[in-house]
């Protein structure tokens, strides 16, 4: 699961301003055996006596994410059986592509998390471990991996998970007819994958099936990110999908209506886009799950508080953060929180996407090409105040492009660019942007109108965008704002490669992967490099970061420190806010935690009584 998030999440566009990858929660993934590496405190160190004492705001009404626990305090004894209601917060239906090989949206991954999981788990530093359904051994040179699947790991229909299934997943993803998003640089790193994809070979030469339960994969390049998510760990049931043509798989009932997995719960019924009922998979390899039944339903962000209060849902994957301050004292839930692996940012369009070459083409004449202009725009906005006022401290000023959810790599000593509107005016003045009436002109004297687009979603979205526009107006920049709905927004920013040339500046958010390698977002050949920025220095640092030399952690840290500095200097995008993820959990729920490395698994989640607690 985590793996998909990694390879995918660099690509995953965060839904609106507040919907982030809820799929990160370890319980959903069920494969995080390690303590939390994030900035969140370790709850187990100090079991709080009163179970649901809400984290208190300080006198300014501000909250601090480090006051939140990421583990639910258990109250009472687990009930034998029982059922649990899970709320998937979304204002649209989930797409229903319920297979790791094919899915693309975050909501689908939340659905998947309950009934399927990957073959490998990882530890505190996001390195694969041997605690999952399979174990692995790496060769001396770090290029060849031998995997052994545990004997008791079976599909929901009782068939054993085999090495053939794992190979089959690779074959499907590499197939020319494959229509999902997983054929990426991780895939092409498998020896023989490109030849297979191009039809030059019938088999993938780098993958060998050694036995029923043993598989060996050879990779072209050994990189530090290989063992932090560079391996495809989701097998595909060959006994079910073997007869279906690859082109038809993603639309098949086996993916949409009766999906199959290996996880602790199995899908009993699905109402497309709305809800899923899971039943216990008594045969689960880790042990018998505690609950008899889990019901997942889509809950609109505007109803989520009511549903929680009335006990209609016990847990939500990702709570809309702007609704928290008003509900911090909800009596029947406990609030869990972690630093989210995500950040909000403002991007500048600096070029185009060349689909044929698969590369970004920076344009030196782009409207935003002057770094002084970009820097002034960063200096003009007070994100510290934005975080405090709009988000009560639950989002806070961002400084670099590696968020504090990766505490080792996040360079806390780098202050980014600080708020200084007077300095911004001076900078623009010196760079030749002279005031002509209310607004500044370009250095050549022509008019400067900047088009800014932002996403709708949540009541903060528009005031926030307005705030940026007026901050820029205050330093003399004429900025036009257009608010767009999620899909239209990314379409115009260029998620298909056809960038809308009228867009100059945009506000968006990224969920980042467990590996810090930024190639997928800022590399020269990354479609999702929406700012279309590229420079040789950037190429060099990104390559260094995943080179063999980077197996030396100190060196890798140094490289990414340099990269963060480069990004603060060049400003193709600037981060605005770091984010926290909150999850309210009904008091009857036991053994639940969010975030990375909690040592808790989905199958352990239990309830202490039949009926959920209701708010007083």
């Amino acid at each position, binding site marked *: 699961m985590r793996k998909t998030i990694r390879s995918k999440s660099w690509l995953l566009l965060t839904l609106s301003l507040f919907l982030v990858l809820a799929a990160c929660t370890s319980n959903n993934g069920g494969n995080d055996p390690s303590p939390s590496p994030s900035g969140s405190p370790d709850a187990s160190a100090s079991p709080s006596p009163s179970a649901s004492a809400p984290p208190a705001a300080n006198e300014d009404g501000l909250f601090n994410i480090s006051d939140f626990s990421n583990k639910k305090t258990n109250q009472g004894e687990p009930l034998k059986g029982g059922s649990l209601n899970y709320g998937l917060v979304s204002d649209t239906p989930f797409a229903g592509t319920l297979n790791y090989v094919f899915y693309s949206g975050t909501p689908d991954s939340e659905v998947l998390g309950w009934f399927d999981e990957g073959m490998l788990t990882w530890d505190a530093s996001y390195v694969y471990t041997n605690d999952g359904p399979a174990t692995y051994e790496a060769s001396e040179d770090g290029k060849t991996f031998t995997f052994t699947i545990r004997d008791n790991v079976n599909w929901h229909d009782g068939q054993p998970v085999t090495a053939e299934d794992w190979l089959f997943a690779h074959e499907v993803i590499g197939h020319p007819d494959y229509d999902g998003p997983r054929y990426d640089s991780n895939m092409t790193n498998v020896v023989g994958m490109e030849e297979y994809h191009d039809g030059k070979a019938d088999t993938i030469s780098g993958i060998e099936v050694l036995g029923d339960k043993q598989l060996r994969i050879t990779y072209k390049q050994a990189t530090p990110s290989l063992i932090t998510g560079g391996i495809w760990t989701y097998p595909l049931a060959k006994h079910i999908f073997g007869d279906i043509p690859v082109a038809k798989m993603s639309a098949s009932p086996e993916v949409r209506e009766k999906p199959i997995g290996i996880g602790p719960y199995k899908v009993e019924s699905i109402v497309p886009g709305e809800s899923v009922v899971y039943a216990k998979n008594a045969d689960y390899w880790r042990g018998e799950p505690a609950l008899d039944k889990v019901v997942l339903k889509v809950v609109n962000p505007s109803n989520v508080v009511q549903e929680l209060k009335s006990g209609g849902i016990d847990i939500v994957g990702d709570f809309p953060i702007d609704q928290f301050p*008003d509900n911090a004292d909800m009596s029947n839930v406990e609030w869990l929180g972690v630093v989210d692996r995500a950040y909000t940012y403002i991007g500048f369009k600096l070029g185009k996407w060349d689909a044929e070459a698969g590369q970004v083409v920076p344009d030196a004449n782009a409207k935003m090409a002057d770094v002084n202009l970009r820097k002034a725009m960063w200096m003009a906005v007070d994100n510290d105040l934005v975080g405090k006022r709009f988000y009560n401290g639950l989002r806070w000023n961002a400084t670099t492009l590696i968020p504090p959810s990766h505490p080792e790599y996040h360079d806390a000593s780098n202050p980014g660019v600080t708020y200084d509107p007077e300095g911004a005016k001076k900078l623009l003045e010196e760079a030749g942007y002279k005031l002509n009436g209310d607004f500044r002109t370009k250095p050549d004297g022509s008019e400067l109108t900047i088009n800014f687009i932002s996403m*709708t979603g949540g009541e903060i979205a528009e005031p926030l965008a307005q*705030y940026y526009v007026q901050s820029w107006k205050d330093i003399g920049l004429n900025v036009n704002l*257009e608010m767009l709905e999620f899909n239209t927004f990314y379409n115009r920013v260029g998620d298909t490669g056809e960038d809308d040339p009228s867009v100059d500046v945009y506000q968006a958010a990224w969920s980042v992967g467990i590996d810090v390698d930024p190639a997928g977002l800022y590399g020269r050949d990354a479609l999702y490099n929406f700012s279309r920025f590229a420079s040789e220095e950037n190429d060099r640092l990104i390559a260094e970061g995943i080179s063999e030399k980077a197996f030396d952690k100190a060196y890798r840290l140094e490289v990414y420190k340099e990269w963060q500095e480069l990004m603060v200097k060049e400003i193709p995008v600037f981060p605005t806010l770091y984010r926290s993820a909150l999850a309210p959990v009904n008091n009857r729920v036991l053994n639940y935690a969010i975030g990375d490395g909690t040592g808790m698994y989905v199958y352990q989640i239990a309830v202490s009584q039949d009926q959920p607690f209701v708010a007083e």
Partner: protein
Amino acid sequence: MLKLSTNKASPQARPRQPADKSPSGLSIVWREIVQDKIALVSFILVAAVTLFVYVTSLLLDQDQIVRVDLFALKQPPSSEFLLGTDQGGRDIFGQLIIGTRNSLTIAIVVTLLTGIIGVLVGLVSGYFGGTIDNLLMRVVDFFMILPFLMVVIAFITAVPNYGITAFTLIMTAFLWLGIAKLIRSKALQEREMEYVQASRTSGSSHLKIMFVQVLPNLSSIIIVTMTLNLAANIGLESGLSFLGFGFPESTPSLGTLVSYARNPQTLEMRWWIWLPASILILVLMLCINNVGQAVKRAADARQRKG
């Protein structure tokens, strides 16, 4: 020939002239409104609100009102902010004034435009009948079978720089249909009347018969429909804004203010954001409707009170 015919046509209108015999249309309407106390109060209320918002909004600076103020988010009503502030720290009272002005302007402009187009098409179609009628009515039918809300919503998401003008035009494009059908049916009846035949025989031009002779006879129905439409059009803008297809927040409108109530926290805990606008919509629509009902009665001698 033409000259002669005009001369001959004028005596035809003469029987309607004597003022002591039948009062003018407007005075009948006025008398009807005065007779009906509810309609009178409604009329005064609408007039007062309209006058107030248009005058006050001249004195207000819209840019200042929609400016996001991070230090005044979600403030309850106080002496500084008469009706509090919204989640962007923007003064609700100012937004209410400008919003009402915007919503009213839209409703009035849409009503007038649809009225003009509808009357023109309906009159031409009904008066001439035959092929022209057939053609025009098929156009009307075509627009009518389009799913109105769907098209409007698609249009709103597709149009860049969506604002008051664009909204007014798209509304107008669909809302003239009803009036056109109504006027057509009346014109069809009217053209069979003897005065039309007579005027035609005596050589009056089609234009003159349509606009000078037939149109005045339809004026009562036009006024009634348009007054009632005005009330509906205020609701239309608010409804669309509420559904999330309204104006950007930098263009306040009544619907935008009400739509903040979609957030349950706002609905429960911050009544000052949405309640004033909701009451205002209710009052405006009810009042205009009351006036409209009085006008309707005035148009029908059998129902008159006064």
